[in-house]
């Protein structure tokens, strides 16, 4: 009889086997089972977002309550979050979709979310420049090789490289397609084999750390 930890281990085994079989035999009944499982997965993933929201809002409420350092940003986050959700619901009811051209949600998207996301990502250029200046040192042979390769690729991947020498972009492409690929393939195969091994261990109930 299944009891205690045996129940989740059996469910894991069964689900894993169904997914493997349905990948190779995508016909009835396995194809349908896979489709249903994937739909369930989407629903469960949706609920995990709720957990994330709960954790985020809870943390910022606590910060606000205790008047911790930078509590004002927590207030901005809570107001921003609440306003976006409320406006999103109202506009979905009004127009059938929150992203209607006339909706205030689209306004929030165009004038808050787009600039904020773009700014966050573009800040990377500044941080990368500063970090490269401070940390990219030719300390030994390996670091020197990496540094020289990085400089070649950085020049070869922009039109300026073509102006310096027409061979630079070609050499960059060779670096990308041969040495870079060799390293990537090695890492990729290692990761895949590792993931495969862990998956088999989980399906067979050998690896049980996910239960704790």
């Amino acid at each position, binding site marked *: 009889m299944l009891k205690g930890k045996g129940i989740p281990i059996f469910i894991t085994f069964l689900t894993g086997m169904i997914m493997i079989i349905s990948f190779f035999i995508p016909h009835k009944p396995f194809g349908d089972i896979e489709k249903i499982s994937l739909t369930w997965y989407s629903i469960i993933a949706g609920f995990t977002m709720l957990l994330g929201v709960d954790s985020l809002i809870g943390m910022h409420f606590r910060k606000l309550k205790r008047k911790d350092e930078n509590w004002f940003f927590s207030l901005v986050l809570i107001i921003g979050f609440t306003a976006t959700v409320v406006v999103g619901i109202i506009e979905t009811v009004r127009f059938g*979709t929150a992203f209607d051209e006339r909706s205030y949600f689209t306004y929030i998207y165009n004038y808050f979310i787009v600039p904020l996301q773009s700014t966050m990502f573009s800040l990377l250029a500044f941080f990368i420049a500063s970090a*490269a200046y401070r940390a990219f040192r030719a300390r030994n042979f390996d670091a020197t090789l990496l540094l020289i390769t990085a400089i070649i690729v950085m020049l070869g991947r922009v039109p300026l490289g073509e102006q310096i020498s027409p061979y630079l972009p070609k050499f960059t492409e060779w670096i990308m397609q041969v040495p870079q690929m060799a390293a990537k393939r090695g890492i990729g195969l290692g990761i895949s084999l590792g993931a495969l091994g862990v998956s088999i261990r989980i399906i067979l109930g050998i690896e049980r750390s996910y239960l704790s």
Partner: protein
Amino acid sequence: MNFFLKLSKIDRRFIYLFIALVVVLPLILKPKFPVVVSKPVQDVYDYIEKLPEGSNVLISIDYDAASMPEQQPFLEALLRQLFKNKLKPILIVQWQLGAPLGTMGLEKIAKEMGAEYGKDYINLGYRPGYVAQMVGIGKEIRDFFKVDYKNIPLDSFPMMKNVHNYNDIALLVGLEAGATYLAWIEYAGGRFKQKIALALNAVSAPDAYYFYQSGQIVGLVGGMKGAAEYEVLVDKPDLAVAGMASQSYSHLVIILFIILGNIAYFIEKGMKNKEGGK
């Protein structure tokens, strides 16, 4: 020597200022840089050029505003090529916050090229659960997209009457800011033999080279540079080509900073060795 030592302790805000200048000034002054087309980008273009008139091309918007400067110019260049060749784009979205960007690009280029909604192109919008969708489209697209992005039934559009699954789609083009493309390759490509072309952010483009080499994708457009190459191919230089000067100069400035930082490092190291020798 003192200069280099002082330089090694430079306030990072000066570095930020230099980067800001080399990004902004070229956008204002607009210096011209010749853009040479690389083979992975040429392969995407050539594959689409060979598609028969009326073929359906599934475009997946898997990016959001953070990647807009890299992906949006490619989307627009791609749509220009599709409409020019009388191919039919079907737009779907896997990243919810990318939905308005996809719609914006599609509507802009459709208007410019005189394309008619529902007959020449369609926008199916966002649905949650991308892996389920990728597998589901292999059987029947209506299982996930019964209606378009404005909740109009799919069967009311002439171009969708004969579109049911991957067999009716000549090419899938994924515009990718993350790792969603791996699932496209695994499910749509691996299981349903769907032809795939990818446009990835520059930071993740090297990760997709082995799919290109193995023939699992027909071509690869990497970052803003790839988008600029595509704009050149469709003979309509636009935002990506304009951004090439900024990108060129910013790369150059970062390289100069790295070289200066290393000179300062070796001078400092030499001085320490000398002091140690005494």
